[in-house]
């Protein structure tokens, strides 16, 4: 690769990162209550508990941070899974981690744990994601190939989906069912800083695990034997990526519900910009995902719909036709 291409790549990362940060910052100015954000920020920094300060710190700030970090998680995990499975249709949802996280959170809700203490819901989600990842690892086994991994993911997704439905089915309280179903649709509205504090560290650990796999993913482009011959431990790579995405996506789903298609669409759009290199796609997709999700979350706030459109509904409405187009193109390109 020439130095020019390296510079172009650095420029792309800088542009995406800056855009994501700028939009997240701008999103602090958008909401249903009108107040002066600068006064609010000054009050908050000075420790004055004015209403504006509370609205900024407890409503808009968590929403902006979660939008950016969950978007980063989804974009990065999508790129990592696509690189690992060497399949542009792969997504955190594919390996069953999202489904496991959703069930874990629903279980916390259903058993009443979430009523006992507020953080039980996100904790349940993380636990579900980790259990899914462990089940995946047990099913796919050591040294399993791509097909086995995908099939195991499908099986886990079906099972956790069935368990979630079972919980809804048996729920004695119809309001609880409504609440769960709304949460499952995915949203960043009314999240709090303690939720950020619980989810963000887990996400960061997952990010590090995924970002440090860049070189191995590049090598994997030429198949498993070649990657091994270039000195990479594929079992360790799979484990790192599965566990890393479980932590990051599990924490995301637990806090914000299921937000689909970001992990599928963002890496696909950015791939030509990084010369199709799976390693370089990781960080670019993270920033791209953050940008996309914050913009989408601005969208649901700006759209004149009441009640507010759920974020997961919007991403699915935009993303699903995109997936269809991808499948269509893949079919056409087949010999």
């Amino acid at each position, binding site marked *: *690769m020439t130095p020019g291409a*390296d510079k172009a790549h650095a420029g792309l990362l800088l542009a995406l990162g800056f855009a994501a940060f700028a939009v997240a910052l701008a999103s602090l100015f958008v909401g249903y209550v009108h107040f002066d954000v600068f006064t609010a920020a000054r009050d908050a920094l000075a420790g004055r508990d004015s209403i504006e300060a509370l609205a900024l710190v407890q409503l808009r700030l968590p929403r902006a941070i979660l939008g950016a970090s969950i978007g980063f998680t989804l974009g990065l995990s999508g790129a990592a899974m696509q690189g690992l499975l*060497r*399949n542009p249709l792969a997504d955190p949802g594919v390996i069953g981690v999202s489904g496991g996280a959703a069930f874990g959170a629903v279980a916390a809700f259903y058993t009443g744990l979430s009523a006992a203490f507020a953080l039980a819901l996100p904790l349940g989600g993380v636990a579900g994601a980790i259990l899914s990842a462990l089940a995946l690892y047990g099913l796919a086994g050591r040294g399993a190939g791509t097909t086995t991994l995908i099939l195991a993911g499908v099986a886990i997704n079906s099972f956790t989906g069935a368990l979630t439905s079972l919980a809804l089915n048996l729920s004695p309280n119809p309001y609880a069912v409504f609440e769960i179903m709304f949460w499952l649709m995915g949203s960043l509205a009314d999240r709090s800083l303690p939720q950020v504090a619980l989810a963000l560290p887990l996400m960061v650990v997952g990010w590090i695990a995924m970002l*440090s796999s*860049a*070189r191995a993913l*590049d*090598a*994997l*482009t*030429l*198949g498993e*034997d*070649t990657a*091994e*011959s*270039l*000195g*990479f*431990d594929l079992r360790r790579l799979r484990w790192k990526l599965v566990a890393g995405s479980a932590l990051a996506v599990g924490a995301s789903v637990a806090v914000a519900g299921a937000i689909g298609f970001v992990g599928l669409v963002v890496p696909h759009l950015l*791939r030509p910009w990084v*010369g*199709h*290199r*799976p390693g370089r796609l990781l960080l670019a997709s993270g920033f791209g995902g953050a940008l996309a999700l914050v913009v989408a979350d601005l969208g649901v706030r700006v759209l004149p719909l009441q009640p507010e459109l759920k974020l997961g509904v919007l991403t699915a409405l935009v993303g699903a036709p995109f997936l269809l187009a991808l499948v269509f193109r893949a079919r056409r390109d087949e010999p």
Partner: protein
Amino acid sequence: MNIEARALSFRYRDHVALDRVSLALAPGEMIGLIGPNGAGKTTLARALAGLAPPSSGEVYYDDRPTREMDREIRARRVAYLAQSGGADWPLSVAAIVELGRLPHRRAFAAPDARDAAAVARALAAAELVELKDRPLRELSGGERARALLARALAVEADWLIADEPVAALDPLHQLRTMELLRTEAARGAGVVAVLHDLTLAVRFCDRLIVLSRGRVLADGRPSVLTPEVVAAAYGVEAYAGEHEGERFVLPWRVKG
């Protein structure tokens, strides 16, 4: 570095892919690994490259078992070219070849001048300089095979173990690639190539190892490949002749 296989066996359920194979390989030689389909050539090549843990027995690099060896050191010393490889993403030829430098690079480090020089040498050796910016997927099968060989050459390892490096090539590039591999061996590298073309094998290799049903049927100078050995290994009658002082072996008809 010498490579030695000691009583190497591979069993997949009831099937025995390799049966107590023992070999000692020294660098500076072009070694051809031949035998019929299913004889265990790929299994042996992968094992020699340290990629497959055997059911029993062991592969040693200079008397050290490969399984005890650090992966990254092994990756710098032994390059492996997989059979029928491809790229899952449409990377450019230059980017593919550059992957061969991964064992020499630290995490997150960009390729340095030595890497760039090695990539340039490999591209030139495989006659790919004009194609270097094209996506691998758009190339013909033979061009793709040469790009993947260039990727393996770019490692600049002590050993190159290549599984069918000439299978997809036209006659011109078959000859060029065999010459290229022989030059590598002449420079002091060890080269092991899995081959199907008996004439190329006999003409270009310094040593031939004939595998049949997971065992070594013959091993030595190319003259070990007599019509009798060909008949025993492949079940075909072969015609052995001479042209310009060089021996060749042609499979002629199915053994009656």
